């Protein structure tokens, strides 16, 4: 087991797997981040991803274009967010209830659509889908280490990394970002300066729709080429955990996703290594336990930092 792990670290397979696994979590966590920062934490990431995963592959297959498919998936997810905003901001439904509702809806509605459109119930895998491409960098591709490190990843992997930078700039370098932060932290203050609190919150939800839409599209058209009922299988909740683990900022979230992705990648390797005596359930626990440990280490370090600053 250790040897298998080591060889895969050495030949960079681990990194490749890590990047693949981390992308959907990173993207939807960024979505969760923006809504959380604006004080409308979005528990519905899971439902949004499902909605987008289905819409994007359906449209992508029909138009034979992953671009249009992805755009459609994102649009569906954003539209859902506006509905969620209507209920939570306008009708003052508790944002958590609204989020759970979106999850239930996303799971049910995608199956409903699938059966209405294709007469299928469980899964949909279009025959010649044109999926989100992998980016092969011509020059670098053949260089031993660098090639594997940089070339051949899915486009969405790069988009997710760019999204981290994008969110950072959005939150800290644009006026809108300051509005988002103020609305989440001190809505009365923002309101007193004429910032339309409701509208900013709508837009924050919409952003979470954009990112979970991208995550969903990646799951059905990048990681796989199919839609399977409930295929997100809890990714949205993990993303939520990553938002908090990452201390509510884009860079932290990047590292949070990295930790989680790494734990998942290691789990994959351990799970496929023959002769492991550890029961599968305990291996599957690894990412969750690692997350808790990371959280505790993080909290302790924060505390210690405060103390060392003092003396």
């Amino acid at each position: 087991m250790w040897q298998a792990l080591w060889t895969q670290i050495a030949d960079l397979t681990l990194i490749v797997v890590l990047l693949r696994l981390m992308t959907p979590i990173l993207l939807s966590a960024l979505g969760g981040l923006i809504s959380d920062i604006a004080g409308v934490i979005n528990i519905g990431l899971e439902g949004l991803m499902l909605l987008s995963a289905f819409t994007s592959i359906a449209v992508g297959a029909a138009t034979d274009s992953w671009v249009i498919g992805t755009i459609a998936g994102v649009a569906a997810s954003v539209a859902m967010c506006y509905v969620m905003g209507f209920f939570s901001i306008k009708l003052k439904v508790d944002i958590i209830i609204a989020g759970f509702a979106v999850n239930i809806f996303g799971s049910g509605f995608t199956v409903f659509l699938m059966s209405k459109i294709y007469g299928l119930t469980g899964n949909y895998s279009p025959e010649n889908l044109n999926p989100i491409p992998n980016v092969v960098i011509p020059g670098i591709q053949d260089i031993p280490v660098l090639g594997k490190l940089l070339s051949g990843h899915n486009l969405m992997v790069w988009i997710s990394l760019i999204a981290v930078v994008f969110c950072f700039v959005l939150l800290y370098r644009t006026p809108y970002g300051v509005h988002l932060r103020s609305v989440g932290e001190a809505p009365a203050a923002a309101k007193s300066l004429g910032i339309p609190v409701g509208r900013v919150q709508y837009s924050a939800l919409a952003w979470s729709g954009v990112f979970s839409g991208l995550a969903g599209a990646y799951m059905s058209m990048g990681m796989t080429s199919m839609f399977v009922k409930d295929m997100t299988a809890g990714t949205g909740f993990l993303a939520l955990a990553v938002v908090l683990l990452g201390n509510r900022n884009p860079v932290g979230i990047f590292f949070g996703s990295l930790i989680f992705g790494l734990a998942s990648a290691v789990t994959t390797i351990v799970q496929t290594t023959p002769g492991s005596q550890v029961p599968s359930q305990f291996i599957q626990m690894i990412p969750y336990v690692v997350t808790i440990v990371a959280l505790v280490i993080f909290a302790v370090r924060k505390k210690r930092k405060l103390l060392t600053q003092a003396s």
Partner: protein
Amino acid sequence: MKTEKAIYLELAGIAFAIVIALLCGFAVILATSAEPFTALSSLIVDPVSNLFNIGTILNKAVPLIFTGLSLAVVFQSGVFSMGAEGQLYAGGFLGALVAVNIHGLPAWIHFPLILVCAMAGGALFAGIAGWLKAYWNANEVVTTLMLNFVAILATSYFVNNVFKDPASGGYARMPYISPDLLLKKPIPGFPAHTGFVLALLAVVVVYLLLYKTKVGYELRLVGKNSRFADYGGIHTNRVIISSIMIGGALAGLAGIVEILGVHGTYKDNFSAGLGFDGIIIALLARNHPVGVLIAALFYAYIQVGAQTMQVGSDMPREVAVIIQVMLVLLVSSQAIFAFLKQKYATRQKAVK
């Protein structure tokens, strides 16, 4: 006198919300069904049209009441735990172990022992998250979400490997619990089991605990203003841990009551999200125990309605679920209540 009016207003608000919700649901039904009236009546009337369905509603409400109470307690102390699901497994598992593996005790000792062990299992498991929060400052949302996975996977391992009934076939379960330990169905032809009585009892106990005891006072105070509680000499950390553990005990009860009332033994993966439904119940109830009772019955009612609608009409499961979601959303709309209150207040003013 004033509170009485407030209650009437609240009730009026609920009625109003339900009417709107039904109108919306009706619109969806009209759009998707060839037999809208049958569909509507099978959604609204069927669940209460016979004893069987009413009993089913009660049975469904029972675990929701427990998980709802569990989360109401935790939320009242200002902790946003999502961990009822895992605690339910942990508690149910321990309770079932005691039920299955201890023999020869008279039922009147054995049964309470099972409940106590289930509560202990839930509470101890919840205690991990409480301890992490209180002493390591680890965000409870993250820890409880992660610990849910840990509990589900660990119990799954044990029931599949260590405590499996060899006769359980394709899906692992423990050996069946002796019938005299199970919750009875006292009324012939009425499927409700006595777990509902336990749930009512729990509502009363939690109500008393929260609003009439020292512990409840401290717990709510910490939730409302922990700095004030600190200033008043309350050990906030201890209170937080105990509230999470009380919540865990209630979640454990949810698990064991479901096992003793419905499943007859511990089955792998038996909960299917009861702990998460509890979050919705607690929020709908604004964390009040009596509200939890009402919200759980309402939630169970519309869940059974979704099922009877599927049986009694041409509506597919998914549409039924969507209508169910709409009902929940509209009934929890604060804006509708505020609107009514304002109307009322301005009218009062005008009268003066």
